[in-house]
C-alpha cells in the first residue's frame, strides 16, 4: 500500500476512536493534532461538527492529496446505535426553562425579555413568573377586547419610546418581527394583563380585610446612605414628629432623603408597622443603611385606590406562592 493509502487507513482508525461527545471535543482535537504531527506532509485538519440539541458530534479529517486537492475522510463506527437515535435531539433542545406545563423556548424567552419590567426582581424570577401566568391563561381562549389590546400595545410602545407608526415599524424590522407576529405578541401580553387585573380584583378585598393595617396611608421620611452618616442623623429623625420636615434639608454626611405618603405595604420594611413618632433603623438596605420616621398614619379606607393596592399586594403574594409550588427546570446545557 502507498504511504497515502496507509495514511487513509490510519486516519479512518483515528476517526473511529475519537469520542463523539461535545464534552470530549478538546480531547479529540488533541488526539487528532498528535496524529497530524505524525503525518506532517498531509496538513491534516480535524473538522468538528457540533450538532444542535444533542451531545453527539461528528468528525471529518481533511488531508492534502499528494496528487493535488483535498481528501475528506469521515468514518462512523459500528457501535450498535440505531440511525434515528444517533440523530435524535434532547427533549428540551431549544428550550430555556420548563415551568409546570409551560415549555419556554429560547426564542420565546428572547421575545419575553422585551416585555420584562426589570423591577424588584431578577430576570430569572420574572421569566418564571411570566410562565406561571401563561400556565394560568393557557385554557383562556376567550376574545381579548379591542380596548385591552390597545392598552397593552400603548403601554408596550410607550415603554420603548415607539411614539408613532414609523418608529414601531422600524423597531419591528430591527427585532425581526412581522406585524402579524407583533399583533400576536401584544395579544399574549393583553391576555396576561387581563388575567392579572381579574386576579387582583378577585383577591384585593379579602387581602384588605385580612390585614387592613398594610393599607394605612402613612406619611414618613427616611434616609439611606453609609452606616455612619445614617446613624449620625438619627437625632434629626427623632425630632421630626411635630416639628416639621425642614430639618431634613440640613442633614450631615452623604444621605439621600425621601419624604412621602404611601400605603404601609409600599414603605421600607422597618416603617410599615411603625406608629407616628417612631424612629426605625438603621438597618442594612440596598448596599447601605436606612433609617426613618413615621410622621403620620391614617387608617385604611375601603376605596378604589386602596382596593387596587390590596389587589396588587395580594397578586404578588399569590404569585410567590405559585412560584414556591411550581416545578421549575432550567435547561442550560
Amino acid at each position, binding site marked *: 500500500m502507498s504511504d497515502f493509502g496507509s495514511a487513509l487507513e490510519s486516519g479512518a482508525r483515528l476517526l473511529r476512536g475519537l469520542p463523539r*461527545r461535545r464534552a470530549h471535543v478538546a480531547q479529540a482535537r488533541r488526539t487528532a493534532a498528535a496524529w497530524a504531527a505524525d503525518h506532517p506532509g498531509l496538513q491534516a485538519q480535524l473538522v468538528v461538527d457540533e450538532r444542535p440539541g*444533542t451531545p453527539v458530534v461528528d468528525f471529518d479529517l481533511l488531508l492534502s492529496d499528494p496528487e493535488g486537492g483535498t481528501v475528506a475522510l469521515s468514518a462512523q463506527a459500528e457501535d450498535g446505535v440505531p440511525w434515528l437515535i444517533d440523530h435524535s435531539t434532547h427533549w428540551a433542545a431549544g428550550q430555556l426553562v420548563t415551568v409546570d406545563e409551560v415549555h419556554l423556548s429560547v426564542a420565546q424567552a428572547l421575545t419575553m425579555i422585551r416585555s420584562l419590567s426589570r423591577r424588584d426582581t431578577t430576570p430569572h424570577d420574572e421569566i418564571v413568573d411570566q410562565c406561571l401566568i401563561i400556565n394560568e391563561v393557557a385554557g383562556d381562549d376567550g376574545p381579548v377586547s379591542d380596548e385591552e389590546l390597545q392598552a397593552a400595545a400603548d403601554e408596550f410602545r410607550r415603554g420603548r419610546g415607539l411614539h408613532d407608526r414609523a418608529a414601531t415599524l422600524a423597531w419591528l424590522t430591527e427585532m425581526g418581527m412581522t406585524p402579524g407576529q407583533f399583533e400576536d405578541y401584544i395579544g399574549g401580553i393583553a391576555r396576561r394583563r387581563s388575567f392579572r387585573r381579574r386576579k387582583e380584583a378577585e383577591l384585593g378585598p379579602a387581602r384588605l380585610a385580612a390585614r387592613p393595617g398594610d393599607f394605612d396611608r402613612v406619611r414618613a421620611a427616611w434616609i439611606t446612605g453609609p452606616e455612619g452618616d445614617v446613624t449620625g442623623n438619627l437625632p434629626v429623625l427623632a425630632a421630626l414628629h411635630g416639628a416639621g420636615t425642614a430639618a431634613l434639608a440640613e442633614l450631615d454626611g452623604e444621605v439621600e432623603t425621601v419624604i412621602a405618603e404611601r400605603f404601609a405595604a409600599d414603605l421600607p420594611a422597618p416603617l410599615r408597622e411603625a406608629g407616628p413618632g417612631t424612629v426605625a433603623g438603621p438597618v442594612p438596605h440596598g448596599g447601605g443603611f436606612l433609617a426613618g420616621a413615621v410622621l403620620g398614619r391614617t387608617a385604611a379606607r375601603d376605596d378604589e385606590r386602596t382596593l387596587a393596592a390590596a389587589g396588587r399586594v395580594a397578586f404578588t403574594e399569590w404569585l410567590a406562592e405559585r412560584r414556591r409550588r411550581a416545578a421549575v427546570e432550567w435547561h442550560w446545557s
Partner: protein
Amino acid sequence: MILILSDRRDDAVELVLPKLERRGARVTWWDPGDFPARGRLTAAFADGGHRIVLDTGAERLDLAEVRAVWRRRPNAPRPAETVTEPSHRRHAVWQAEFLLDGAWELAPARWLPSRREVERRAHNKIIHMARAAALGFRVPETVYTNDPAELVPAYERAGGNLIAKQINSDEFTLDGADHRTYTTVLGRRHLTSRHRLQHEPVILQPYVPKAVELRVIVVGERVFAAEIDARDSRTARDDWRHYDDDRVRYAAHRLPDGLERACAELTASLGLTYGAIDLILTPDGEYAFLEINPNGAWGFVEQRAGLPVSDAIADWLVAADGIAEHAMSAPVNDTATHPANDTVDGKTDHE
C-alpha cells in the same frame, strides 16, 4: 352511562367533562392503570348470561349500563406496590389485560376512537398509508426500511430534500437524558452513517413543501381542520411539534368537500370513530397525506384555531343512547344480564 378511560391528569378529558355535564350525561372517569391495584373487576356467568361489574373504588359500575366509551389515554394495568417480584408483576399485568380486553369487548357500547386492538392496527403507518392511498389521498413517495442500501437512492430521488421519521413513537435515552426523534431533514452528513439503518426501520420521504400544515380532526361524521403555519418559526417549520407558539399561526381551515368526506371515510374505514389526520397543503394548492393518529391531540385545535372539538366529542358520546333527551330519568337495571352474542363489533357499531 359514559365511561372515560384515561389518566387522571388528562387535560383533554377536563375539556370535555363540563360539556358532558351540561348535556346531563352520567359519566365515570376511570384509569385502567388503577387495575388491579385499586379497581376491582368481576365478570360472572350464570343462567346463560353474564354480568360484568367494575368497582372503581368510588362507585360500582355495571358495564351493561355503559353506552359509550371514550378510550383516551389509559395507562396499562399496574399491580399493587406490594407485588414486588418482577415476574409476579408481569404475571399480574398479563392476567389483568386479558380480563379487561374481554370486559371491554362484551360491554354493549360504542367506542371513541375504538377498542385497543382496532386502534393499534389503525395506528400502524403502513396500514393507514395504504388505506389512504387506496382512497385517493395524495401520498408522498415513501420508503419504510431498515436496508442501508435504500438511503442514498431515496436521497437522490428526493433531489437531496429527504426527511426521516420514526415508524412509531417511543421513549429512549441518550447518555441518560430523554431524547426525541422529530422529523429530521437529512443532509449529506446523515448518509455517512447509513449502516445504522440496519438496527431499526425508519420512514424516508421527500420533503413536501408547505404552504401550511393541517391537523384534521374527525369525530364521527364531523370534520374539523386547523391549519398550522410554521413558516416563520426556525424551530417548528419542519415539525410543528416543537410548539413555537409565538411564531406559529393556527387558524381554522376549510377543506375541499371531497377531501373532507375522504377524511371521514378514511377514519371510518380503519374502524375508528375519531382520528387526527396530518396533511400538508403545498404552495401549489395540493393536499398531501402524512398520517392518521387514532388518538391524536386536538386540544390546540380547539384552543388555537377555535374549533369546537370538545363539543363534538361530547355530542358523540351523549348520542350513544339519547342521554340528552332523558338524561337522569332513564331506568337503571342493576341486575340486567346480557347474552354473549350481544357483543358489539367496533366497526359495525359506528357505521
